[in-house]
């Protein structure tokens, strides 16, 4: 048996009020791709931060390449051969591509940086990944996906023995993921040990050799991927929530289509999405399916007026209406939970209560504050109904878990009693328990007559709760598929792959 390149044992790490890691053991062999799986709060991020020296473990040992090590910081970790690429691209957008690859270790001649060598070597490194970029252009002028690949190029060139990829695929499209996997396999052949974190089960099964599962800060186990079925893996990650998942599967959503709420006629925005015709009905869940960058979020943002459409018109009943600003949309009964909860959704410093009443208060204007009592009633009602935990209205929302933050966002809009609710990736990055609750809620809201637009990267999820599925591709709406019980994820995928590619 080969000796592990990285082995940790007995790792514990606590934060005030939380034991993030409790006696966790873990090992990485050279030349393997190893998945680290767990729900939010399982301790994945903390473990990675311990491995990269961002946090110091309270107890336990780390052995790198056979020698005991205490990792003091990212730089020290890199020197030990551990490089990390994070989900958010952690490079400097104001520097050139070449400089981002080499900063901190630029080749020097006579004590000064040899810019020629920097540019030449970075172009060579990118070429190995089949990337043809202007290495002197600012990194910020490239797409997020390219930035991610540049980050990987940087990490790989640090002579890494261990490469940690922390959700690198969440902002890549299919082609880019495939390209990334090619690179990962090549690195594996070179003997690099890769620790891979992803929420996408398919990707884990496609590329990984072994998997370590964490739950609630404890080690569940380490398994060869071939000996673990998907259901077993999910069961190990979640403990007992599997039953709930299957239960929901059986509730086939019944279409109880009500009146037409809005009719989009050729609504589009240059560079974001080509003109779209779409009718939205009360009581109907419309799923938007498509790859990242297909225009699904862009379409949602146009309907809400988060971005203004530059073509087409919107009809509400027979009346032409303007949905060019969020305010105008809100006045027409549209609500929108954006994809980026922290950036575009919640005000992290404010309390749960303040975040929940924000939309309602904004609609009333500052001169008509909600009374203390009315506030308490409303907020209390939704904290109970959505089972927000902890159930204290005065907790700062930043102290809540991702799933509960999403519920606060939902509650904010539900108290405005919207006619149309747009949810952009409401279940991304939250644990399976909360995910199921939110899916149930959407189904029951539609049952009560609310129109819903639902965006998710997971086709199974879209299928499970939508009445019809709009398929987007390359920033245009390709087709509409009725979810009549025969629709399968494979068929949607096929549509995405083969759909009207007449460009």
């Amino acid at each position, binding site marked *: 048996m080969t000796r592990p390149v990285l082995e940790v044992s007995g790792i514990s790490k606590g*934060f*005030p009020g*939380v034991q*993030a890691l409790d006696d966790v053991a873990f090992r990485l062999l050279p030349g393997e791709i190893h998945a680290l799986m767990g729900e*939010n*709060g399982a*301790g994945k*991020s*903390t473990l990675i*931060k311990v491995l990269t020296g961002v*946090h110091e473990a309270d107890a336990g040992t780390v052995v790198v390449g056979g020698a005991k090590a205490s990792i003091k910081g990212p730089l020290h970790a890199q020197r030990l051969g551990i490089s990390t690429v994070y989900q958010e691209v952690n490079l400097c957008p104001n520097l050139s591509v070449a400089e981002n690859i080499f900063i901190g270790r630029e080749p020097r001649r006579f004590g000064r940086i040899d810019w020629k060598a920097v540019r030449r070597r970075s172009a060579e490194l990118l070429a190995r990944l089949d990337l043809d970029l202007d290495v002197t252009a600012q990194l910020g002028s490239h797409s997020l996906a390219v930035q991610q690949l540049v980050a990987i190029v940087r990490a790989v060139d640090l002579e890494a023995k261990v490469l940690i990829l922390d959700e690198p695929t969440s902002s890549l499209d299919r082609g880019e993921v495939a390209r990334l996997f090619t690179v990962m396999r090549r690195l594996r052949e070179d003997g690099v040990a890769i620790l891979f974190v992803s929420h996408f089960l398919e990707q884990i099964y496609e590329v990984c050799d072994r998997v370590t599962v964490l739950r609630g*800060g404890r080690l569940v186990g380490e398994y060869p991927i071939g000996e673990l079925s998907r259901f077993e893996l999910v069961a190990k990650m979640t403990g007992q929530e599997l039953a709930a998942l299957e239960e929901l599967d059986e509730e086939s959503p019944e279409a109880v289509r009500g009146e037409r709420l809005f009719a989009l006629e050729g609504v589009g925005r240059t560079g974001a999405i080509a003109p779209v015709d779409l009718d939205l009905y009360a009581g109907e869940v419309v799923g938007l399916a498509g790859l990242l960058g297909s225009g699904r979020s862009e379409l949602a943002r146009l309907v*809400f007026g*988060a971005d203004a459409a530059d073509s087409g018109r919107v009809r509400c009943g027979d009346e032409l209406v303007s949905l060019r600003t*969020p*305010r105008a949309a*809100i006045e027409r009964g549209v609500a*929108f939970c*954006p994809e980026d909860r922290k*950036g*575009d*959704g*919640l*005000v*992290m*410093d*404010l309390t749960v209560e*303040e975040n929940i*009443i*924000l*939309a309602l*208060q*904004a*609609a*009333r*204007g*500052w*001169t*008509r*504050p*909600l009374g203390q009592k009315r506030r308490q009633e409303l907020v209390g009602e939704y904290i109970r109904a959505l089972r927000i935990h902890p159930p204290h209205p005065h907790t700062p929302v*930043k*102290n*809540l*878990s*991702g799933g*509960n*933050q999403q519920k606060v966002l939902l509650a*904010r809009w539900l108290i405005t009693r919207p006619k149309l609710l747009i949810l952009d990736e409401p279940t991304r990055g939250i644990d399976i328990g909360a995910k199921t609750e939110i899916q149930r809620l959407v189904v029951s809201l539609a049952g009560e007559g609310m129109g819903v637009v639902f965006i998710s990267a997971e086709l199974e999820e879209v299928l499970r709760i939508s009445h019809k599925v709009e398929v987007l591709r390359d920033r245009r709406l390709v087709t509409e598929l009725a979810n009549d019980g025969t629709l399968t994820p494979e068929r949607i995928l096929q549509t995405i792959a083969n759909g009207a590619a007449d460009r």
Partner: protein
Amino acid sequence: MNRAAALTRHTLFWPVTVWVVLLLANVAFTPGFLSLRIREGHLYGSLIDILLFGAPLILVALGMTVVIATGGIDLSVGATVAISGALACHLIAGGHGLIVALPVAIGASLLLGLWNGLLVTRLGIQPIIATLILMVAGRGIAQLITGGQIITVDSDAYKMIGGGYWLGLPFSILLVAAALAVTLLLTRRTALGLLLEAVGGNAEASRLVGIRSSGLIVLAYMFCGLCAGIAGLMISSNTLSADGNQAGLWIELDAILAVVLGGTALTGGRFALSGTVVGALIIQTLDTTIYTAGIPPRMTLVFSAAVVTVVCLLQSPAFRAKVRRRPPAAPVPSAAEQEATA
């Protein structure tokens, strides 16, 4: 135990503590420091003096708090103070009555606030830079109005604003009290405070819940301009003169300091008006303390620096964690980690 911890974590705890310590230090030097007496129907005493001399600063700092709450900052308040005083004195010296001079001065201050607000909202310029423009140019404008001279006026009615008494109290203290009351009412009895904190806490999220943030931000800068304008009138009325070069010099720094001392973060969001008042009082009391302790007044700045440093260190979580060190150097987890581990 827990209650004590909650108390020290309260926003007002450290500012009030520092203020009380300063007052006690004064009592040590001057035993009758806290006593008040009535002479000729007017209330006198060191506390009254602190309030009287601190009135313009409190006023400016109130406006600054609201601007900082929106995630902004206003460096131009000193210039506004100078312009407002210069305009008023220029008009009074030119034979106009208060009925013309005051509205013009106040109107100009509002306009300057509007200019700042529009730069921030319409052009999307960073507040610190947007208001830097007026900070640099504003004093030039004030000197332009006064013609580079110190304008003196002779008007008993004008003197009332900054140096007069009403109901036994200095008029400017009453003015500041009224301003504080109005600001508190406006922000806490309406939803204005919540909406301002939302805008300052997360501008994009605020736009997406339908808050008209540009309107609110412009309003905040105009309010700040208004406060600075009134403070400018107070300062020039107290001396019955306008000095385009010196009036309100560095008041923007003192005001920002007062806001920070009062526990409002410069990053915006949560704000504490009462904290700001305490912060301004700390700054003013420090001046008085240096005077009563017999320290040469030229050393005031050294003490200001010391107090600023101490209060900022006390409020710095990093510093507190370092000093405490009872749990061996446990860093406070960031919001992201708390979320990930909760």
